[in-house]
């Protein structure tokens, strides 16, 4: 069986099936929904960071923009929720196009500029002068679309799409070429790769899935403030989850979300006072001892990790 089919059948499908079944047997639906959102965002970070090397510290910008895209469609155009989610993804892509010049920067400069861009979008959306459009700093309360079950299913569809993108990248010469660009852009161009185009495609794909995620998030919660959907926690969590598991693989970010977001919720529920301490130590240990993530425990031994 070709590896693309194998990865789809043995990783993507079981994960989706698990999260389709879980709401029937586990009551904390919000927690499950958040897991799905972080699976999408961590894989979105994987697409842009794992495959091209751009660390998107302002990744939440696409998520927040998507959430507001959804809200504006519902508030001003009485759009049905699924259509509003599609628009949310497109808003993410539009923001990605607007921020495309940032791809000229590299390393920390890109990360910082991307963070600044996300803050700029937050302040734009939260501007009281735009109250008639975005409700400014006062937040939105959506009527008529509230349906957590449907929103959860929508999130699963977005997760399926995201996993599909990552499985494709992991199994195609397109994904190899992206990694080549990450390793050395000029060498990649001397392999015939159109570096600017490839980077742009990866950037817009990661913007698209974050925009979609923001859309289903808005659908699920229905009431939110700019600070909620533009919270830097989303960027940081998604990046840490992806890095912890190991990027440029399909399984790494999944493992990262399951373990770290799992621990986060366990510690957070029972002993919140220790959470930041333990989490902080975990991240320091990771950076020091496992910079390429958990999967590198296997890849170092020469094992293949899908």
């Amino acid at each position, binding site marked *: 069986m070709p590896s693309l089919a194998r990865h789809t059948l043995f990783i993507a499908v079981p994960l989706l099936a698990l999260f389709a079944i879980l709401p029937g047997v586990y009551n904390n639906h919000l927690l499950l929904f958040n897991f799905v959102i972080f699976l999408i965002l961590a894989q979105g970070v994987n697409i842009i960071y794992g495959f091209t090397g751009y660390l998107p510290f302002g990744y939440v910008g696409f998520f927040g923009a998507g959430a507001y895209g959804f809200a504006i469609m519902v508030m001003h155009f009485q759009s049905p929720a699924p259509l509003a989610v599609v628009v949310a993804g497109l808003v993410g892509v539009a923001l990605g196009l607007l921020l495309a010049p940032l791809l000229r920067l590299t390393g920390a400069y890109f990360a910082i500029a991307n963070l600044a861009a996300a803050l700029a979008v937050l302040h734009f959306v939260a501007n009281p002068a735009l109250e008639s459009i975005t409700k400014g700093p006062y937040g939105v309360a959506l009527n008529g679309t509230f349906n957590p079950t449907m929103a959860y299913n929508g999130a699963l569809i977005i997760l399926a799409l995201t996993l599909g993108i990552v499985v494709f990248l992991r199994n195609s*010469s397109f994904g*190899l*070429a992206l*990694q*080549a660009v990450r*390793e*050395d852009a*000029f*060498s*990649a*161009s*001397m*392999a*015939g*790769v*159109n*570096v600017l185009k490839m980077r742009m495609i990866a950037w817009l794909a990661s913007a698209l899935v974050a925009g979609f995620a923001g859309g289903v998030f808005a659908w699920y919660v229905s009431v939110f403030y700019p600070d909620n959907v533009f919270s830097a926690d989303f960027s940081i969590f998604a990046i840490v989850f992806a890095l912890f598991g190991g990027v*440029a693989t399909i399984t790494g970010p999944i493992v990262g979300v399951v373990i770290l977001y799992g621990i986060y919720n366990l510690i957070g529920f029972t002993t919140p006072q220790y959470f930041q301490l333990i989490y902080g130590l975990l991240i320091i240990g990771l950076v020091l001892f496992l910079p390429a993530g958990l999967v590198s425990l296997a890849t170092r031994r020469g094992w293949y990790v899908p």
Partner: protein
Amino acid sequence: MSPDAVPILKVNDLLKRFGGFHALDGLTFHVSPGEILGLVGPNGSGKTTAINVISGLYAPDRGDVVFDGVSVGGMASHKLVHRGINRTFQIPKPFLSLTVRENIAVALAYGRAEVTPPSTAELLVDFHLDAVADRPASELNSAQQKMLDLVRALATRPRLLLLDELAAGLNPTELDWIAGRIKTLAKSGMAIIVVEHLMGFIEQITDRVIVMNAGKEIFEGTLAVAVKVPEVIEVFLGGEHAA
């Protein structure tokens, strides 16, 4: 090389500035299919810069690069690759986290679409990389990285190949062997430009050399004649690489 051969590359009055410094200052030369042209000169004379301009890393500030009758100065590198220009790097830059096989796969998939690409197995065997085919490029030694860099270039089936100090750091046996490989490539019709400090190696494989100094050509002809020209001797004795 027969003198009536039509050049595949003509470089015309190239100027390349870095700030106020002229790394290339009116460089003019040509190379024909099947020919191996040596590009020699002291450190900093502009050899790598010439390759960088021809392969699209820099647009020339003046002058032109004509490849196969088309002006290509300043064209994006991947387009030059698709037209049939490729190169190796003085310091090879393979895709370190990818395996040798994956490195080659990228060039095979994205190289020249209109030609049948060479087979990976053949490339691996021809350049002694078959034993490490499934290792990440980061685990190769520097000679193997150079070979991988060359294979990456060859996988795109170039018509013009620019070799930047490919031989540096190879032992005598490896030198003989790679000299043979380069000659075989030229016999197949490829035009090859060889930048090298090892004069014995240049002597062994080139038909003609261009001696560069300070971004200009100061001599064109065979190496045997070059070493008798006072200006050439002066330039080399003045530099670090005394002949």
